[in-house]
């Protein structure tokens, strides 16, 4: 199922949160809405779900205008940032909630509900805690129960609000790989909101970068990283150095700088070296401003860098942005 957001505007008591957002997500895609906090990405998600009304513009699902449908009719599953599990219901009843809430004519039998819930509990590998209550679960478990609760009603679109935001780092990486796999199996069109560029890069097919209620750029993760349209995108997706080189202002990532002991390029002084990691991070001062270069361990050994040493830096790309 595809989702089309068409020119959506939203304002809260005078503050413009969304300024004409248009976006289309194709069936089966996994799209990340990426942006700093307060950029309007959660509001956009809530508008798609029907929890907020846009001031103008509309949202289509497979060409159907969703404005005519109530939140419960949109066949959209929404996972809240803090999961919003029903704390007075057991894990089993949480997952069964959507099935039990159906009108009598299309409500599954008790037997069918039990089967469906049990198969979802297996999917999230939590069948052993079906009788527990939400506050007896860890963050990662709650997250998976929230997902199962939404999947129980077979949504055609899945919306996730900062799905990994409340988890600790290790669980976060595990869960996002798990989610990626589940998305591959289920093929449900999925939109998730995040402020973490690593997460967006790691999980999604496509990233939409939002800032101050506008879409700055959208595209595949690799393409965005390599060809950012402007300084905001370039800066948001990773570290970037601003260099004056041959009279031009260049925006260069740390690994796009080569260092050499022979004169040429920009003269710089080494101020710090950090060797822990896959690349060696070298902090330099060049024309009075700090820059960072990332070089391989092999290069680091060959150059035998020391603090205070003078070195010559050359950018390997000529990335410019119109001011």
């Amino acid at each position, binding site marked *: 199922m595809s989702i089309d957001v068409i020119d959506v505007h939203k304002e809260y008591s005078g503050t413009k949160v969304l300024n004409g957002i248009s976006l289309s997500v194709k069936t089966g895609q996994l799209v990340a809405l990426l942006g700093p906090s307060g950029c309007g990405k959660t509001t956009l998600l809530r508008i798609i779900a029907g929890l907020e009304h846009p001031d103008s513009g509309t949202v289509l699902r497979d060409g159907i205008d969703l404005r005519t449908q109530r939140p419960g009719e949109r066949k959209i599953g929404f996972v809240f940032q803090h999961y919003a599990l029903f704390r007075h219901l057991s894990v089993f009843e949480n997952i069964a909630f959507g099935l039990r809430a159906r009108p009598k004519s299309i409500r599954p039998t008790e037997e069918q509900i039990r089967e469906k819930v049990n198969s979802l509990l297996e999917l999230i590998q939590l069948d052993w805690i079906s009788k527990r209550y939400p506050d*007896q679960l860890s963050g990662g478990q709650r997250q998976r129960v929230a997902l199962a609760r939404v999947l129980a*009603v077979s949504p055609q679109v899945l919306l996730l609000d900062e799905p990994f935001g409340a988890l600790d780092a290790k669980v976060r990486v595990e869960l996002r790989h798990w989610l990626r796999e589940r998305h591959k199996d289920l093929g449900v069109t999925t939109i998730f909101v995040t402020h973490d560029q690593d997460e967006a890069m790691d999980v999604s097919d496509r990233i939409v970068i939002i800032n101050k209620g506008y879409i700055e750029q959208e595209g595949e993760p690799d393409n965005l990283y390599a060809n950012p349209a402007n300084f905001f995108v370039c800066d948001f997706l990773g570290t970037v150095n601003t260099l004056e080189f041959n009279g031009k202002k260049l925006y260069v990532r740390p690994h796009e700088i080569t260092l050499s002991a022979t004169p040429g390029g920009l003269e710089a002084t080494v101020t710090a070296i950090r060797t822990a990691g896959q690349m060696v991070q070298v902090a330099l001062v060049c024309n009075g401003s700090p820059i960072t270069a990332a070089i391989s361990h092999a290069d680091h050994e060959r150059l035998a860098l020391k603090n205070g040493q003078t070195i010559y830096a050359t950018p390997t790309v000529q990335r410019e942005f119109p001011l």
Partner: protein
Amino acid sequence: MKKVRPFSPNTADAPWLKSCLIAFAVLVVLVIVVLPFASVIVQAFSEGPSIYLTLLRSSDMQVAVLLSLKLAAIAVPLNAIFGILLVWGMTHTQLPCRRFIMALLDLPFSVSPVVVGLLFIMLLGKNAPLGGWLEEHGVQVIFAFPGLLLATIFVTLPFVARELLPLMEGQYRQEEEAARLLGAGWWRIFLKITLPEIKWGLLFSIILSLARALGEYGAVAVVSGNIRGKTNTLPLHIEALFNDYELTAANAAATLLALLGVITLTVRIVAELKKKRDSNEH
């Protein structure tokens, strides 16, 4: 070897101080609560249990008890429904006059019940326009059951709403949104999400308003007209008996009111224990 003497940290109370404080508290409760209570019971039974029962079986007494129970039975559920609806409305919509409504809701607490009774008489009495009009159409409000009911509802109005407001402003709102997205209708959301969240508060406030409805004196006294065997509620009947120097009868009636008080208290304690167990379980 030197003997180590364990010292008590400065913050710990000295044992004698603890005992003194407890003794003082017990004494206060004894003098102010238990003693009068016991004297009521002793007085009530001073002429023997058979007289006690006869006094309770007098027709005026039975009318008074029934009237009080009837008033509570109508006023309390009405207040519960009104309280839930009002608070639901205040928390789920952007009412501009929220503060004003809250202030209005405090009125029954802050105004003397006697004034409330007088207001009702001035509004609905025979000589008032509205009261006169009602009278012409055969509805007597003041010095009759409707007036008593209005007064009772008025003085117990805030209990449920005040108790529920902070609970329903709580953080379960996202749970409601989640339920809505899963296709649940408002009744299911109320039963499964909202009610479990507020049920103990609701029960407490119902018990409180029940106790107030049964024991209310001031406002009811003004609108009742003290027609014995007709518009006298239990508290009014006690006063009437006392004024007639029928001390034994007055005390017998008082034991009934006290009994109702004890029952409400017991329900509250049981509910509190249950609530504790509930929150331990989850």
